[in-house]
């Protein structure tokens, strides 16, 4: 039987076991929406397409499945760009569908026409403009494969309206044959052996673990490795939650706002074992002084990451989980107390601290309380800015994948829609969004989506009435010449919450936090907690631009 390509698209999604689509309809994608009308797939109607793509991203991070979103042509498509770029930078598997004007009108500047495949070349793993309806099932098959395998990433499929309406015989391929795309999963045995040898002889090893651990679901192997060789573990921001936050071997985050212990450990190590990390500028600081005495073992699925920023002595291209398993089979239990003693001394000497009791509520205190209340077991979604760093520093993640945040692109406004996606992916779980008063406003219309979907989100706004991170940067780099960071007007978040039928609290003191935060988190429905926090607070320590990470300062 012949069906339209739009109907075939929905069937393909069913075959891929897609459960949820986040989207926003419009003219050019009407046929797909019409096909969705009868599908068991759940469609979540957002309030801006940026919300759809971030929600799909949050859903993917929370569930480990491919996130799917959908928008119409033109502005629908361009509104997705930030979210696609965000997923690309953080290696999140997404399949993004956009409607397009009919093929006869492509290239004529037709109404709501935009060259979205051209626009997204720099920010997708791959993209397709479908010109032949018969190819659509194969393209979708390929798209899911490319998005989810190797180093994951977003794939976009642009579907012209006439193609969507074309009738085809439906046949979903069961295998993929892409001659230009063959990820390497198994690490080279010789290299793994070499890594094992180096680990055996290292006196001061450090494990530097990134988001690749989470993508490859290798948290257990990471823990085993650390405990086998008794090496301290530091996480990149993206890697947080891949290693238990309360484990004695845990150093916390490294880099720009990392712990001094982590940065000193890396600077002084003789072997750096980089796992699923990419030596990002926020991690390395001044490159020449990053792990200057270390031999570097770098395990990553993406060969292009190896040697991109720093010189690597033992490159191992492969899936982190598989490589770690191989590696573990070659390792023996190791116990070198002097290095761990040194690490322990640094940890004691340089704990993360902030000053309490200055009459104002400190944002760090709120995070500590959050951690305390749910014992590090919630799924925490953040936006971008100071609050994000405080979460990274003061929340002790217990479960892999329980931090959902925009690392590479640093997208303010990611948080709320991502939390929507995460909550939809994990219906029974406590999902907490920690955000700032600047970030939440970027995509605050998605409160409407949360309301419509009846999601019991807990939204914690660390409200300092300022774009805090930029203010901090202006303090440090611009001589406190504050420009365009102070909001002259602050919305009343309680009334705003009420507009969306959401219960709200405003907390001003530690005492109020102690009393009301547990109640807020315990409420069955959605809650917005507006925490009025100290505006002058800085994220410390900080590595000044161009300096080595060992030279972090407080500001």
């Amino acid at each position, binding site marked *: 039987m012949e069906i339209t390509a739009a109907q075939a698209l929905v069937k393909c999604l069913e075959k891929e076991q897609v459960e949820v689509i986040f989207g926003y309809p419009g003219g050019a994608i009407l046929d797909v929406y019409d096909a969705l009308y009868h599908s068991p797939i759940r469609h979540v109607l957002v309030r801006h397409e940026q919300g759809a793509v971030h929600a799909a991203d949050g859903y993917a991070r929370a569930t480990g499945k491919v996130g799917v979103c959908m928008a119409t042509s033109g502005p629908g498509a361009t509104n997705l760009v930030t979210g696609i770029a965000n997923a690309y930078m953080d290696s999140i598997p997404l399949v993004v569908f956009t409607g397009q004007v009919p093929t006869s009108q492509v290239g004529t500047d037709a109404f709501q026409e935009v060259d979205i*495949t*051209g626009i997204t*070349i*720099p920010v997708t*793993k*791959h993209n397709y*403009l479908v010109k032949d309806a018969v190819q659509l099932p194969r393209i979708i098959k390929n798209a899911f494969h*490319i998005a989810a395998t190797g180093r994951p990433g977003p794939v976009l499929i642009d579907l012209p309206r006439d193609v969507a309406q074309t009738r085809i015989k439906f046949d979903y391929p069961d295998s993929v044959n*892409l*001659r*230009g*795309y063959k990820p390497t999963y198994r690490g080279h045995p010789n290299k793994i052996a070499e890594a094992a040898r180096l680990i055996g002889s290292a006196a001061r090893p450090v494990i530097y673990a990134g988001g690749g651990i989470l993508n490859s679901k290798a948290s257990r192997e990471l823990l085993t490795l650390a405990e086998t060789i008794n090496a301290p573990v530091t996480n990149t921001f993206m890697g947080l939650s891949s290693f238990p936050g309360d484990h004695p071997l845990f150093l916390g985050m490294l880099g720009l706002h990392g712990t001094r212990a982590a940065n000193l450990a890396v600077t002084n190590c003789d072997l750096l074992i980089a796992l699923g990390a990419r030596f990002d500028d926020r991690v390395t600081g001044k490159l020449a002084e990053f792990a200057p005495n270390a031999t570097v073992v770098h395990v990553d699925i*993406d*060969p*292009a990451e*190896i*040697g*991109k920023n720093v010189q690597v002595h033992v490159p191992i291209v492969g899936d982190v989980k598989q490589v770690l398993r191989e590696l573990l089979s070659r390792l023996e239990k190791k116990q070198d107390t002097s290095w761990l003693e040194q690490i322990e001394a640094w940890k004691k000497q340089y704990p993360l601290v902030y000053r309490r009791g200055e009459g104002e509520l400190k944002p760090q205190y709120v995070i500590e309380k959050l951690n305390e209340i749910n014992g590090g077991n919630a799924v925490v979604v953040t936006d971008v800015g100071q609050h994000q760093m405080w979460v990274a520093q003061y929340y002790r993640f217990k479960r892999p994948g329980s931090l959902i945040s925009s690392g590479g692109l640093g997208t303010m406004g990611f948080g709320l829609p991502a939390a929507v996606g995460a909550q939809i992916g994990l219906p029974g779980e406590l999902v907490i969004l920690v955000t700032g008063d600047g970030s939440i406003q970027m995509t605050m219309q998605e409160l409407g989506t949360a309301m419509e979907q009846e999601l019991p989100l807990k939204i914690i706004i660390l409200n300092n009435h300022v774009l805090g991170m930029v203010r901090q940067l202006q303090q440090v780099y611009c001589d406190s010449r504050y420009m365009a960071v102070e909001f002259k007007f602050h919305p009343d978040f309680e009334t705003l919450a009420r507009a969306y039928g959401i219960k709200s609290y405003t907390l001003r003191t530690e005492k109020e936090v102690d009393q009301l935060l547990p109640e807020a988190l315990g409420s069955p429905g959605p809650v917005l907690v507006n925490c009025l926090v100290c505006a002058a607070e800085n994220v410390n320590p900080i590595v000044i631009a161009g300096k080595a990470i060992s030279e972090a300062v407080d500001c």
Partner: protein
Amino acid sequence: MRHTLAVLVENNPGVLARVAGLFSRRGFNIDSLAVGRTESPDVSRMTIVVEGDERVLEQVNKQLHKLVDVIKINDITADEYVDRELVLIKVNADPAQRGEVMQIADVFRARIVDLGRKTVTLECTGNDGKINAFEESLRPYGIKELVRTGKIAMLRGTKYTGLQENGD
């Protein structure tokens, strides 16, 4: 140092934009890029000449590999290969000078492809060095217009850069 890459790509629309975009985005320097179809209609071949040290080349290679439409990359710089480029040069040559220009053309085994009242248009094929030398010899006469195709290259002997296995 200059490297010559033979890159096999899917003959899909937009593949040139993907490759060009990658080079510009990552800040790689392209010296020349020539593209055309190959013995199989669904595969195109790009000959890309890139300037850069080993580390840059390694990144060029790896980043190109990440493009789903890129099937195979061969850095043939260190191999024995034949490379050719075509140049068209329109040069000033009034009748009195034509003899000299034609002599130069002879030396380089170039051909005259068009004659104007005051100009001669020449076609010359060869490797980089030869083309450069040809251009230099004509410069004194006044080059009115010059266009080069960019280099294409192929390995010598029984080695292939195509999709088939190497060997006889």
